[in-house]
């Protein structure tokens, strides 16, 4: 083989590649020519929703390369106040905007993108697997202080709360305490910290989203109802909340497209379930901001 033929082959290969590329781009552009989506979308807020939003966001930008999409945490409160101020396009929240002081809910539009179930969790050595709702309430209000009072080991109860204003705490307290104040105790600012501390501290009790369960800690059934996705879908398991994406006014095209993508079958039927959330499409009940549940 001489130099010339090598060169010719190289050129042929490169031109083939170029042609291939050209074809690929032309075909995609013709497919999506109706919406040459571009723009900047920023979603800020809930750390519980953040992993899902980030994964869905990166899948979305893979298809719409001109959209610049950023997902950040910061907490539900941050998400709601930032979207209310118009600083971000989407505010992620674990709780209804109506439940938060200082947020004008009627100015915001709610997009429910997933459901998260939460359950009480205890350290394994307590020997507790099931509690009555009334017992759970007495534990978190400080009336019961030893595990032997509810059929467990003789061990002091160590309550670990989430920080005041956390969406997970608000959901848990709405469902379990129903208006009474929790006893003052340890507060941790993330699901991860709670998971670590409950699994290592003897006598510890807290509450976690289903996706944070591990075999190092014990998820507790309430009144013999086990914390499973199916029980949440029928509201047999009462401690759950929506994951909201709030927008203000009329969102731009890119934001609308992303919200539509979040609600699409691609995300709801695979990604949402894979990441430990419950699909909004599977819910057989609806809950409003006041906590009233109706059958679909």
């Amino acid at each position, binding site marked *: 083989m001489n130099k010339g033929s090598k060169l010719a082959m190289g050129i042929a290969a490169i031109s083939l590649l170029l042609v291939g590329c050209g074809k690929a781009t032309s075909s995609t552009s013709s497919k999506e020519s109706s919406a040459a989506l571009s723009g900047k979308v920023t979603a800020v807020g809930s750390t519980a929703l953040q992993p899902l939003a980030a994964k869905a966001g990166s899948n979305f930008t893979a298809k719409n390369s001109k959209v610049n999409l950023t997902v950040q*945490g910061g907490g539900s409160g941050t998400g709601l106040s930032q979207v209310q101020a118009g600083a971000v396009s989407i505010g992620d929240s674990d709780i209804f905007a109506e439940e938060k*002081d*200082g947020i004008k809910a009627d100015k915001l539009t709610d997009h429910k993108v997933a459901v998260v179930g939460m359950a009480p969790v205890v350290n394994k050595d307590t020997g507790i697997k099931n509690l009555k709702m009334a017992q759970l309430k007495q534990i978190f209000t400080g009336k019961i202080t030893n595990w032997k009072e509810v059929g467990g080991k003789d061990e002091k109860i160590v309550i670990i709360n989430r920080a*005041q*204003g956390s969406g997970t705490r608000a959901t848990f307290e709405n469902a379990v305490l129903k208006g009474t104040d929790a006893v003052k105790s*340890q507060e*941790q600012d993330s699901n991860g910290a709670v998971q670590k501390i409950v699994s290592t501290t*003897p006598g510890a009790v807290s509450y976690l989203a289903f996706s944070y369960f591990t075999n190092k800690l014990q998820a507790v059934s309430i009144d013999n109802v086990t914390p499973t996705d199916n029980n949440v879908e029928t509201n047999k398991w009462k401690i759950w909340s929506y994951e909201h994406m709030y927008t203000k006014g009329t969102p731009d095209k890119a934001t609308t497209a992303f919200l539509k993508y979040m609600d699409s079958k691609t995300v709801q039927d695979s990604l949402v379930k894979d990441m430990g959330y419950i699909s909004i499409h599977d819910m057989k009940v609806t809950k409003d901001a006041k906590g009233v549940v109706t059958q679909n």
Partner: protein
Amino acid sequence: MEQTNFQLKKQDTQSQEWSKRLHHATRATREDWIGRGVSYLCIGVIILVVASMLWFITSKGIATFTQNHVSLWKFLSGTDWSPSQGKIGALPMIVGSFAVTFAAAIVATPFAVGTAIFMTEISPNKGRKFLQPVIELLVGIPSVVYGFIGLAVVVPFMRHLVGGSGFGIISATFVLFVMVLPTITSMTVDSLRAVPRYYKEASLALGATRWQTVSKVILRSATPGILTAVIFGMARAFGEALAVQMVIGNAAVMPKDLISAASTLTSQLTTGIGDTIDGTLPNNALWSLALILLLMSLFFNALVRVIAKRGQLKHER
């Protein structure tokens, strides 16, 4: 005649050119101006940043009292911290912060002074070769790592040792002790090295033993420097957020003992700030906590200056 005229003319133009050159800035002068301009600009920016931060934190921090009409005394002396229900008594956090700060300083100071004496008086060579790098390493470890070690090692250890959940002031003290130790040690070393050589020589010549020299002369004359070191360490402990937050348990209650969960100003700030809404009482209350932190660090700085000034005077006499 004509020739001299021509020469004069030539000289004239030459001198004109010289005067032109002399009256204009040289390259060196221009460089000087640029240098000065750049450094003034930098100073200006820094002053602007500091001033606007002070203004921002202060204006946000006093909103609790001006907008939400909480009385300052109630804020400082109240013991019930439930911002979402409008109760903001910050005393538990203030007490918690001071408790861990003083406890850490008290535990760390003897170790730091001992290490510093070893490094300067007993074995300067080993000190420079071995201890110096170790201490510098301790400074460089990020606080989240200290916190994580605290959570994984110190908390279970304290649980076995003293009972309870292991979270509390005692664990926070232990973690902070390791964190402030290098600060106090290295500054103490500096102040021991600054003691004039003839102090030591005079003392030894008078027949004092090494121990007497160290304890009665060197430590005595380095006291202002050591105090400064301790206060710097305390300032660091007071402002540390992450590591403390991971081991203290963050319960906004008055600390009853050293082994039950408590909280500090910083730990409340980091756990609470993401879940509050701008302009509401819970958010403003957190800014007020930040204001207390700021005022305290200003106080520590002022204290350091006072001590340094007094120390200087002593040496001059």
